[in-house]
Each structure stands twice: as C-alpha cells, then as structure tokens.
C-alpha cells in the first residue's frame, strides 16, 4: 500500500516537472478554462432569457450543475483521460509490454502514469463557480451537505474511472476504439444539464451506461438538497459493482494480450 502511494507521488512529481517546462501552458490552460466557462455562462444566460426554470432547476441551481461539470471535467482531463489515452496507444502499438513487466500491479501502473498538472485550472474554475452558486442559493448549506457532496463527488469520480478503464480495455479486442472514445466523450457533454431533462431512455443510458448522472448530477443534487435517502447508498453500490467489473475485464484483457507484433 505504502509502495503504491510512493509510486503515485513519484509519477506526480515527474508529471509536474514535465509540465512546468512549458510555463506558458499555465496561462494558456487558464485562458481556455475561462473561454469554456464563458461559453457555458452564455448558454445558461440564453436559456434563462427564454424561461425561468428548466425542468424544475432554477438559475443558481443550474450554475451549480455547471460548476460541478467543470470541476469533474478538470479531474478527468488531468488524471483519468491522459492515462487512458496512453493505455489505448500502447495497446495498439504493442508497447504495453513495458508496463506489464514491471513489478507493480498492471492496472494501478497504467492508471497513475500520467498527470496533466495544468488541467487543474478547470478544478479551480469549477470550484469558484460552485462557491458562487452555493452562495446565491441561500439555502441550507452546512457540513451535512458538504459531506454528502464530497462523497457523491468521490463515488462519481471512481465510477468515471472504472467506466473509462472498461472502455479503454476493449482496445485489447477491438484495437481501433478511437471513435468509441469520441462517442462517449460526446455523451459526457450531456452532463452539462441535469439528466432529468432527457427522455427516459437517454436518462437510463446516462446513468448506467455512461455514469454521467453519477459524476455530475448527483453531486449537484447533494448541493441543492435534492438527494433522496437512497441516492448515495445506491451510488455506493454501483461504484463497488463497477470497480469489480472493471477489474475483471482488465484481467481478462491482459490475459489475452500478446503484443501487436509477432
């Protein structure tokens, strides 16, 4: 366990040192975060120039959703996506061997190698937006809400990781999965709005197929006092299920893996 943590810390260190080389990237990344934020705000403003609520969510509540969306997006872009991209590339080019022959559990290794430090600007921006939204809400917001929010966020994050891992692992069999990845990245964009607005069939897909609902809407529900007594325990259950499932599929993939070249 300690070894794993030290390993994570080392990769983090290298990742940060790498990124610090490109000092301008920080400002570029920050700028990009602001542009994305601006676009989102314009979208929200446009919606609310035509109506006062959207499927029961008020403007500050939707702002909270957007804040969570950006924050989770930042976590995905800095820690999850780079690792999955690299895994996919290495499966396709047959260079995954290097990772699999190290004396560290393969799944852990491929999940922690990359870290894009500058993408954390989204986490920063998202947090600021969240804070503003919560202040505007003027609802009851105490330690209970904060805690349930943190838990929801953590579970959602783990679910997204498991989902991505499973998706990337299909590269062991399908090889070319770039378009599949593209498709699901597009689906994540649906998380910008609370999933309750989508037709039922789409909502189901966005909850259990691509855990967007758990990643964004549920934490937002935690912030806006919309959680029912079953939401968080349900989320925990799905998280554990996904962790077991992704681990199983990973092992299956590795067992059949032989490298792309003869």
């Amino acid at each position, binding site marked *: 366990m300690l070894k794993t943590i030290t390993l994570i810390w080392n990769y983090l260190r290298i990742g940060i040192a790498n990124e610090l080389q490109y000092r301008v990237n920080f400002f570029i990344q920050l700028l990009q975060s602001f542009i994305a934020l601006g*676009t989102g705000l314009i979208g929200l403003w*446009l919606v609310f120039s035509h*109506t006062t609520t*959207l*499927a029961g969510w008020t403007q500050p509540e939707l702002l909270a959703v957007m804040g969570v969306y950006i924050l989770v997006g930042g976590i995905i872009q800095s820690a999850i996506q780079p690792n999955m991209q690299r895994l996919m590339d290495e499966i396709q080019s047959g260079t995954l061997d290097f990772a699999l022959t190290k004396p560290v559990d393969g799944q852990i290794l491929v999940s922690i190698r990359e870290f894009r430090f500058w993408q954390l600007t989204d986490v920063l921006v998202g947090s600021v937006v969240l804070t503003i939204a919560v202040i505007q809400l003027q609802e009851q917001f105490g330690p209970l809400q904060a805690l349930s929010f943190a838990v929801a966020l953590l579970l959602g994050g783990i679910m997204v990781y498991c989902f991505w891992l499973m998706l990337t692992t299909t590269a062991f069999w399908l090889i070319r999965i770039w378009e599949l990845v593209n*498709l699901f990245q597009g689906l994540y964009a*649906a998380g910008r709005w609370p999933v309750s*607005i989508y*037709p039922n069939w789409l909502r189901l897909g966005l909850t259990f197929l691509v855990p967007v609902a758990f990643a964004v809407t549920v934490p937002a529900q935690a912030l806006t006092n919309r959680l029912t007594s079953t939401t968080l325990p349900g989320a925990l259950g799905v998280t554990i299920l996904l962790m077991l499932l992704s681990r199983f599929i990973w092992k299956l993939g590795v067992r059949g893996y032989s490298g792309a070249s003869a």
Partner: protein
Amino acid sequence: MKRYNDFYLTSMKIAILEQFQYRAQNYFYMVGVIVEPTIYLVVWSTIASQQGGSVGGYTPGALAAYYIVWTLVRQMNIVFTPYGWEDRIQHGRLSMELLRPMHPIHYDVSYFAGWKVVMILLWIPIAAGLALIFKPTLDPTWLQVIVFLVAIWGAYLVRTMIYAVLGLITLWTTRVSALFELIFALELILSGRFVPMTLMPGWVQRIAFYLPFQWTFFFPINALVGKVGPVELLSGLGMQLLWILIGVGIVNIVWHFGVRRFSAVGN
C-alpha cells in the same frame, strides 16, 4: 485549370475508396456527432413545452427539424482542424506536402470533399432514425431544397478557409490552442450551432451577420427548414461566396509568409 480538375477528381476518388473501407469507424464518429445536437434539442424542446408550446417561434417539431438538418450540415462542414495542421507540421508531414508542385490546401479540400460523399451516404439511414424518434416538421419549397444543396458545399468551403488560416498560424508558434478554443467558442455561439440565430437577442444577430460563422451553420440549415424567400436565399449564397473569396485571399497571404517561416525552422 484542366490539371486541377483532374487532380480534384482523382483525389476525391482516392478519398472515397479509402473512407469507404473505414465505414464502421465513420459510422461511430457520426453517431458521436449526433449527441451534441440531441442535447441542444432536448434542452430547447423542454423550454418550448414549459413556455406553452413554442420558444421564439420554434415548436418542438420545428426544433427537431432544425437539429436534424443540423447533423447533415455538420457532417458537411467538418474540415481539417487547426490541431490537425499543428500535428501535421510537428510530425514532418508538411514537408512531404511541400515537395509537391501544388498547394497543400488543394489536397485537403479535395480529399475531404470525397470523404463527404461517403458521409452523406452513411448519414441517410441515421437521419431516418432521428426523424422517427423526434418527429420533425419540415415543408420546404423546391428553391429552398436547391439552395440548400448548394449552401452545404458553400459552408464546407467557408469553414475550410477559416480553419486553414488558424491552422497556418502554427507555422509561427505552437502556443495557439487558446486561440483555437476562443474561435471555436465564438463559432458555437455565433454560427447557429448552439441555437438557431433567431433565438439570440437582436444585437447578437446583428454582430453575427458581419462574421463568417453563421454562413457555415445557420444559413444552410435555415435555408431548408425556415420560411425564407428567394431574395434572402440567393443573397445568402452570395455572402457565402464573398466569405470564400476573402478566405482564399487571406490563406494565400498567410501561406506565403508561413512557408518562409517554416523553411527557416523546418522539420
């Protein structure tokens, strides 16, 4: 002139042959593209039903028509991205293009044009599916259909030029992703990609008129699904032509200076 004709046809043929081999991947890509307008459609339809049946004059049926036609227009205006230019330059592929006695952009335009032929064929069943689910209301005149068919190619060329200019900037500096994202964001708002331009406040619409973006999305879509008269249709085509010519001019200037710069540093 005849040689360029020949080149375009040959290049398109190659694109069609290659991309047809990749039809599975192309299908997946297209399905991915559809997610975006579906989200917009759902959001605005929700608002329409909440506001008593329509928002800004668009019923859910009209919105469905807008966003389904959107998917075809979107396929048509996918072009070589500025990021693609950056990648091509960094990996030395631009050098291979530079050795040909022909401007690389001819290859891009002709190859993508051929690719679009394949995409249009693949799109038809998807559109049919979408129509079944979302039930669009559509009733265009013959002139509208013809102008639409021309306008989608016009949209393709306008957008090619915009992103070629952006992409060529990477010949000077690679730190331009923020600029790209800014332009993408502007395009999202001002082109009719996010919502029909008529749902935007008046002052935004006036600004958008002087920019090239709405001629790549809103104009072609609206030509087919809106209530547009002949004068508006033809003057719209004229605007597209104007932007294409402006674009070609800028691309030529930027290219001239860009190649000199590239040859100083090279890859």
